[in-house]
């Protein structure tokens, strides 16, 4: 709407939005701020300033191993789900087949169906099949959550690639596989990177499946935080959380620089 900058409507809109963003960012700001406090009990605004909780957090072997297992799981899940999702997205965008809409709906349904129900269902199935808790088990479960993000990121990207480019490549002597590899793949590379990025974040942050399926001896970092928080507001955990926030922020900013934020949205 073309109104003067100081029009009451615009002011009110800006004010509400500012409150909205404050609300949206409040818990993140609070955790980050409180983690620098010097008191034993976590408070916001922080009292005093110290880095002792960071020292303590970085010195904890259990957090380090949690971080390592989280990164490992997220990396494997991201790579696998990007491959699986990209293949499925190509099938859905470039081909017409029986039941296409239904299959696409199935592939996207984990985006909206409760992951808690999936977690319980997988727990019961794994128990019945005597598949013991392991990182592999968790990765397999994470794939179900990650693949939909990859597919949905890639569908619009693939739709923007002119199908006649692949035809032109075939026409010039490239097999259909070579045509995809030489022509379509370079076009969708940003989408693949964005999809992999999503998959990594989803897997790295995942808690619900982890609570039910992760091996008790090798919990991922978010599960360690989840468990610790239930027993009290520990400043060390706040420091770890802040490090996670910073990591996420770095990933978001890097991917924004690489891909543009619109691709994320």
């Amino acid at each position: 709407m073309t109104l003067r900058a100081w029009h009451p409507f615009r002011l009110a809109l800006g004010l509400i939005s500012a409150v909205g963003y404050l609300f949206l960012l409040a818990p993140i700001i609070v955790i980050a701020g409180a983690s620098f406090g010097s008191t034993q009990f976590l408070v916001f605004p922080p009292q005093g300033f110290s880095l002792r909780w960071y020292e303590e957090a970085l010195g904890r072997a259990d957090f380090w191993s949690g971080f390592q297992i989280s990164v490992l799981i997220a990396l494997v899940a991201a790579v696998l789900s990007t491959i699986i999702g990209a293949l499925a997205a190509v099938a859905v965008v470039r081909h017409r087949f029986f039941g296409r809409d239904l299959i696409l709906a199935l592939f996207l349904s984990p985006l909206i169906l409760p992951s808690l129900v999936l977690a319980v269902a997988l727990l019961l199935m794994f128990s019945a099949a005597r598949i013991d808790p392991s990182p592999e088990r968790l990765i397999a479960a994470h794939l179900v959550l990650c693949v939909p993000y990859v597919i949905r990121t890639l569908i619009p990207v693939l739709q923007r690639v002119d199908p006649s480019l692949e035809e032109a490549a075939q026409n010039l002597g490239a097999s259909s596989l070579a045509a995809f590899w030489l022509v379509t793949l370079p076009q969708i590379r940003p989408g693949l990177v964005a999809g992999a990025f999503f998959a990594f974040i989803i897997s790295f942050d995942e808690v619900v499946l982890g609570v039910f399926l992760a091996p008790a001896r090798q919990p991922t970092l978010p599960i360690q935080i989840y468990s610790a928080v239930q027993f009290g507001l520990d400043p060390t955990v706040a420091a770890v959380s802040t490090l996670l926030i910073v990591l996420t922020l770095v990933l978001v900013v890097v991917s924004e620089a690489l891909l543009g934020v619109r691709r994320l949205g």
Partner: protein
Amino acid sequence: MDRAMEPRDRAGVSPLSSFDGGQTAEVLDRSSADGHQSLPTAPPVTGDEAGGSPGTAWLTPWVLMLPALLLFFLLFVLPQARLLGYSFEPDPQSAATGLTLENYGRLFGDMHYLGILGRTLWMGLLVTVITLVLGYPMAYWLARLETRWKTVLLVLTIFPLLTSAVVRSFGWMVLLYRTGVVNQSLQRLGIVDAPLPLMYTLSGVVIALAEVLMPFMVLTLYGVIRGIDRNLEEAAMDLGAGPLSTIYRVTLPLSAGGVLAGSLLVFSLAISSFVTPSLVGGPRVQLMATAIQEQTVSLLNWQFAATLSAVLLAVVLVLALAYSRLVERSGDRSAVVPV
């Protein structure tokens, strides 16, 4: 004419040829219902113009989807179908066998569980209303913003979404406890005398969950409002409508689909979310998600956990169907589906 130019590239074999017979056969079986398999000599008209080796071109999408189909069948459809099966099995403590509806009878006959269901739906409604009331102005402001700050603000909207729900719930715990910053501020401002009970209450869960799910609402509405031609608003103002009445009479009706879609999405996610209710609500706020966990992990009553899950799943499925119908009708998937 240079005859050496004849295509000699044999390196690129068809993607089908690398597949072993077993897997291909499975795909063939899967789509024989489609009537394709019975025509080996005269390849069927598939309408598929993507090319590939003639005659087997229809197989290509199935081969491409095979990993995803296997994954979803084994780790999504199968376990959840099995879970539904448990909900019709009798309680392990009873001697009964065979299929039964007693679990559902117990759920819908017991005020305790009906209360949990009702509380969950009520919580979902409150969260939806808060995100909508706060999210609509934010989305509108964002959609009509024309500065380079827009990118920063979009990142700020997406960033919480990518931050772990555990961390954000943790933040809310710090904010909401008895002597937390919210209560201190309220007391200092003289709004309340004694600290409000926010932690381990439904109100606390609603506040925290509204924040956790807010990006979904804002991004959904942002996509829809951005798609509305600004000329329409300018035309309305040109015809004498003030900004508020322009929003009410032009923008809001045109974004009604987005409002509904965003609300369905947030409501579905709210009633099925687990992390925030279990941290901020704790065991004192009994909701579907926490009840399912309790039945599964503490009480080991898989049958009843399955029944609660089935009911939750049914509600979400109905909403998801409504959502997809809505998206279909609006014709533009990208406009309504958020991050």
